[in-house]
């Protein structure tokens, strides 16, 4: 019997499923960052708002990168539904902590797919995902650096304004 599946698709089908789940997660992240940008805008934190608009666009780029990878290799990428986006936060610090936690979850998810790639010997997908592994390390470090600012400068009054202005350079 011919191996028609291998002729039609260059990636493992189970890996494709995980990549489709990752598309949903990246889309969710993009929407969460958009909600965070909105909160910052409403609270006079213009540079933080700009930062989260940029983050949201980056997450969407990540999503599209995976989306195109699946389709280019013979799989089927599914456009994700996004729901349950929280718009209520108590502080800018809480926002950045939530953002870091979200990035950690994304890192775990990417690592999980890399593990699956190795298990099923899908080296093409693993190679593709190495870019995400590196990117996630950078993303996490960025949020850690920002949270350190809160530890150093505090969270009240002028400190908050100074942190917001520092975020402009991140």
């Amino acid at each position: 019997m011919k191996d028609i599946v291998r002729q039609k698709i260059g990636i493992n089908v189970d890996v494709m499923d995980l990549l489709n789940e990752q598309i949903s997660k990246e889309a969710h992240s993009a929407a969460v960052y958009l909600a965070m940008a909105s909160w910052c805008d409403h609270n006079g934190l213009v540079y933080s708002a700009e930062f989260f608009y940029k983050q949201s666009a980056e997450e969407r780029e990540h999503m599209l990168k995976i989306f195109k990878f699946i389709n280019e290799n013979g799989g089927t990428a599914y456009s994700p539904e996004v729901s349950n986006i929280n718009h209520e936060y108590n502080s800018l610090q809480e926002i950045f902590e939530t953002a870091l936690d979200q990035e950690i979850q994304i890192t775990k998810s990417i690592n999980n797919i890399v593990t699956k790639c190795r298990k099923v010997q899908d080296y093409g997908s693993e190679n593709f995902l190495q870019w995400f592994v590196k990117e996630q390390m950078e993303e996490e470090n960025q949020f850690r650096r920002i949270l350190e600012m809160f530890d150093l400068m505090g969270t009240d009054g002028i400190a908050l304004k100074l942190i917001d202005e520092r975020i402009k350079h991140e």
Partner: protein
Amino acid sequence: MNLLYKSYYFASYQCDHSRSFYIDFGHKQVKLSFCQLLAIRQKVQAIDLSSHFDKDLNYSGIEILSLCNREHLFVFDTLQVIDLKQLLKATFGVLELNSLVAH
């Protein structure tokens, strides 16, 4: 045509000559490209079986599935949905085994 898997209600086949797949739904046989087979798999996987046992979520206990860009329309009851899930899971399992053997 090579039989991939036969469940209680349905059966799946691979045709080497046309490089396509077939699902025999009992009353009719549907020819599928690999892409269409993936689409069916995704749709069937997405069916929430637990909703079939909750009158508020799925009162009639049926699923309506359109396949192959709405070329076919199917109505399945709970037992058929369970069977279809089993068929697709096993079909892809056999296809994976075939890949391992072929390479």
